[in-house]
Every structure is written in structure tokens, then in C-alpha cells.
């Protein structure tokens, strides 16, 4: 079984986000980059499948050379090989086309993406990859069972859950629940050592782009909190009605 896990390289969740002085891009100075948290669940799921039935796990990132430490970390966690598609990932549809090209040139049975990257919050790439390849797609996937050439998947939908079946190959947009948080793998010393010699290939990207970021800004700062004494809860209700008009 060949599994592709798409990995996004994103600012750590505790990062303070600043933009360059001209507002054209993220200012990466002082920001630590990590494996996108949604993708960590997908990577661990792939390892579980590998341990249960055998598989080769390829991790893929569309990004510049600065993302290679993130791919090495995924190798250290247990992936077998890595692919970096060399591009600045500014437009989801172009990223998805690059991933599609890679998948067409290689035979994968299962493609696992994270539901969302926590940087640009697009939730676009996984569905696009599936659409380009005409493959079944399950988003917000919180459970996945592979049985031979088919799969059953559990997904979060608004207000509940759905269960689906399909044949492989398929594309998954995963999140917590795909595996439990406590089961997430972190690299150990042996993993870090072997990761250094695992293959990391660099491939060409699809060019072009349909959208462009014009500018970035930070949201307006909030004014100071209005504290209401704990024994005057009625005052809070009044403020919510008369001042903020929330109720």
C-alpha cells in the first residue's frame, strides 16, 4: 500500500503573527515553523496503517527549501521518503495542481491531507486534489478503516456525523479523531538519526496562479475589558442588551 501524506509548514500555534512593513506578506522573523497540527493526525494514521498491514509512506510539501526541516521531522516521526515540490505556495489551486501532477506520476492508494492549514486557513487543497483526480473525498475525517481495496470513513458534518464507504484510492482531509491526540507520534533519537539518510526528492511545481494576496493586516485591537462585579450579574445582562446589542 502506498500512502501519500501532504504536510503543510506553518507557524507554531503560539506564534505572534506580524506582517512585513509593506503588508505584503507574513514576517517570518522570530516565528517557529512546525508540521501543521491537522497533518500530524494524518501522519500518525498512516503509521498505524503501515504497522497494521504494511505500507510505504511518502510525505509531500509544496514549498521552498526552508520547509525541508519540517519534512525531515516527518521522516523522523516515521515516514519512509519525502518530496518537496519547489514553489512558494501562494495559491491553493496551483498547489493542488502540483500535488495532482505528483500523484499522477506515482501510484498512491491513499492520499491524506489535513483538513486545513493553520496559516492561510483555506480548506481548499484536499478537495481540489480529489476533484482534479476524480477520486472520492472525505473532509473533516475523524475515523478511517481500510479493508483491502476499500475504506469506510467517519466525517464531521454540521451538527453531527456521517459515515461513508468508497473504493481506494481516495483523498482524506483529516483532523483530530483520525487518531487520538494521545497517540500522536513525536520523533525519537533513532528516528532523527535515520531521517538524515532517508530520500528527500525535489520536484518541479506547476506555475501560474488564479488569486493573489493584495495585503495583510492585523485585526484592530480590542478596547479594555469592562469588568462587572460578580454580584451584579443583572448589569451584565443590561450591557449585553443596551450597549453591545448582543441579546
Amino acid at each position, binding site marked *: 500500500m502506498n500512502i501519500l501524506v501532504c504536510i503543510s509548514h506553518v507557524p507554531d*500555534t503560539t506564534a505572534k503573527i506580524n506582517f512585513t512593513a509593506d503588508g505584503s506578506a507574513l514576517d517570518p522573523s522570530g516565528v517557529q515553523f512546525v508540521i501543521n497540527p491537522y497533518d500530524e493526525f494524518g501522519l500518525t494514521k498512516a503509521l498505524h496503517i503501515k504497522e497494521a498491514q504494511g505500507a510505504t509512506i511518502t510525505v509531500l510539501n509544496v514549498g521552498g527549501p526552508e520547509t525541508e526541516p519540517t519534512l525531515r521531522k516527518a521522516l523522523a516521526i516515521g515516514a519512509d521518503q519525502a518530496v518537496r515540490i519547489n514553489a512558494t505556495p501562494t495559491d491553493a489551486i496551483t498547489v*493542488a495542481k502540483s500535488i495532482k501532477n505528483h500523484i499522477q506520476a506515482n501510484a498512491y492508494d491513499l492520499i491524506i491531507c489535513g483538513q486545513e492549514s493553520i496559516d492561510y486557513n483555506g480548506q481548499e487543497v484536499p478537495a*481540489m486534489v480529489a*476533484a482534479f483526480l476524480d477520486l472520492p473525498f472525505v473532509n473533516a475525517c475523524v475515523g478511517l478503516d481500510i479493508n483491502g481495496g476499500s475504506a469506510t470513513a467517519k466525517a464531521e458534518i*454540521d451538527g*453531527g456525523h456521517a459515515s461513508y464507504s468508497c473504493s481506494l484510492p481516495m483523498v482524506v482531509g483529516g483532523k483530530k479523531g483520525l487518531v487520538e491526540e494521545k497517540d500522536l507520534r513525536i520523533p525519537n533519537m533513532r528516528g532523527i538519526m535515520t531521517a538524515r539518510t532517508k530520500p528527500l526528492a525535489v520536484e518541479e511545481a506547476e506555475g501560474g496562479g488564479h488569486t493573489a494576496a493584495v495585503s*495583510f493586516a492585523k485585526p484592530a485591537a480590542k478596547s479594555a475589558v469592562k469588568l462587572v462585579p460578580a454580584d451584579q*450579574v443583572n448589569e451584565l445582562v443590561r*450591557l449585553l442588551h443596551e450597549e453591545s446589542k*448582543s441579546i
Partner: protein
Amino acid sequence: MIVVFVESWNNQFKKASFEAVSYARSWANTAGCGVRAITSASAENASQLAQYGADEIATLELAQTGAGIGAQLAGLVGDAQGVVVAGTAMGKIIAPTLAALTSGALSTNTTGTPKSTSPVVVERGAFSSKGIETISLNSGLPIISFVPNAIGIKEEAGAGVMTSVEASGADKLTTNDVSVASGKVALPEAEIVVSAGRGLKGPENWGMIEELADVLGAATACSKPVSDIGWRPHSEHVGQTGIQVNPNLYIAVGISGAIQHLAGVSASKTIVAINTDPEAPFFKAADYGIVGDAFEVVPQLIEELRAFKAAN
């Protein structure tokens, strides 16, 4: 034409469905064109979409999954100047599927209506609400998926001409089972969210949170550790790695206000924090706060709100 996909479930519209028509109307007014609504609701039910600005209302049989619907819509948007989809769980699948199949230009997580229309320029949330991106949809069919509650529902009469169309394409997934809690407000489109954290000490104490949500007609949510330890279902986990919400009112009870939590809720219009610790970071992000014990404050708040509701 601006084409808007109007989601319905068992012939029931969601709030975000009407908001999608309002969004399309607003865009069409700026672009100087009409609005065509596409929905699988019955013609009888769909006719009400004229109230929100639909000039044409096309009803049809649709697939069951987002990817199936996205593929069907790709065959129906030929002459459109733009497409609007609400960013519900299903809309988040439909919009990128449609963008891929039509080679369109997509903005998701969009927080406002277009600032200009050629090219279409809109604002969207990025970096989990820590940033606002202005994005330009340069080449291909412009497709906008907006955050529910971003603009609200506005009434504006459209011509409301009913048509029926047919779509080709089918689901690639077999749906085995769907379970949706009835009578509960869905979190992503809730106008009010009552959320609680580890300060509540245990799952047995959520009764007052549900009661507070009931009085307000709110959805319930929780912090990540609360869902990790199984006090509440994962589907209630809000924050950077959970559901992102932007209700009119977010009430946080016994939640410290960690940066990852705030990232998913700070777009809320008004935030109330209730916490015993005056140093809790949530007070820096809140509009109103009560430094106090949830077990005393929440029951009082329920009582006061009941009195308020009875009087108003």
C-alpha cells in the same frame, strides 16, 4: 449573473442559506447583474428565496455529498460572473471542488462582501484570525465561500422566477449513515455560543452550561482539553485546531484564554469572560468580564436572563 448555491437539508434551509442569497444580492448589486439561486429544496419552499434577492430560482435533484454537488454545479455555472457558497461543512467541500473543476479563483473564509468587482477583491481571515488577508480573484470564475454570520441576512426583493434544471454527475461516496442532533443550534452558524473549559471541573457540571445556552438559544462549545479528556464531544472543540466561530456573542466560562483558543474565537463580535482568576488572559480579549466563580455566576446569569427574556 451571480450564482448562489443554497444549501438545504431534508428540504430545510439553514440560516447560512439565506445569508448566502443576501451575499450574492450584495455582490450582484455592485456588479450590476442578477442573482440565480440553485437549490435542491422543493420549488414551494425555494420560492421564499426571492425575499433575499434571488431573481431566478432553479430547483433540481442534487447529489448527497459536497464533492458530488460541487461536480454537478460545475456543469451549471457556465455563464456566471461569480459564485457564492456559504462556508458550512458542506460548503467547504463544494467551493474548492467547483473551483478545481471550473479552473476558478476561490476565496474561502471570506469575511466581507467584495470591495471591488473587476477583479473581485475581498477580505478573508488568515492565521486563525490573527490576520486579515485582502485577496484578489484574478483569473477564472470568481468563487466566494463566506464565513457564516459574516454579513447577516438582509431582506431585499428579487424577481423570483422559478425554473427547474437537471444536473449530471454523481457521488463517489456511498453514504452509510448520517446522524445529526435535532433541535440543537449548529456551532459554526450560531449567533450566540456558550463555551466552557477546564474550570468547570468535570462533565457532570455541564448542566448549567446547557441551560444557559438554552435560555439564549445558543450553541455549546468547549476548550480543547475538555474534549481531549472526553468531558465533551470533539465536535464542540473550538479554537485554532478546532471549529472557528464568529458569533455575535461568545460567552467563555472557566476558560483561561490560551492563544490557541483565542485564535478560533476572537472574531466574535462581543466576548464575555467569566473566570475566577483576574489575571486570566481571556480578560485581555473580552469586551465584558466577571471575575468570579462559575458555579455562582452562571446560575445567577441564567436567572437574570430568564427575567430579561420574560420582560422583553
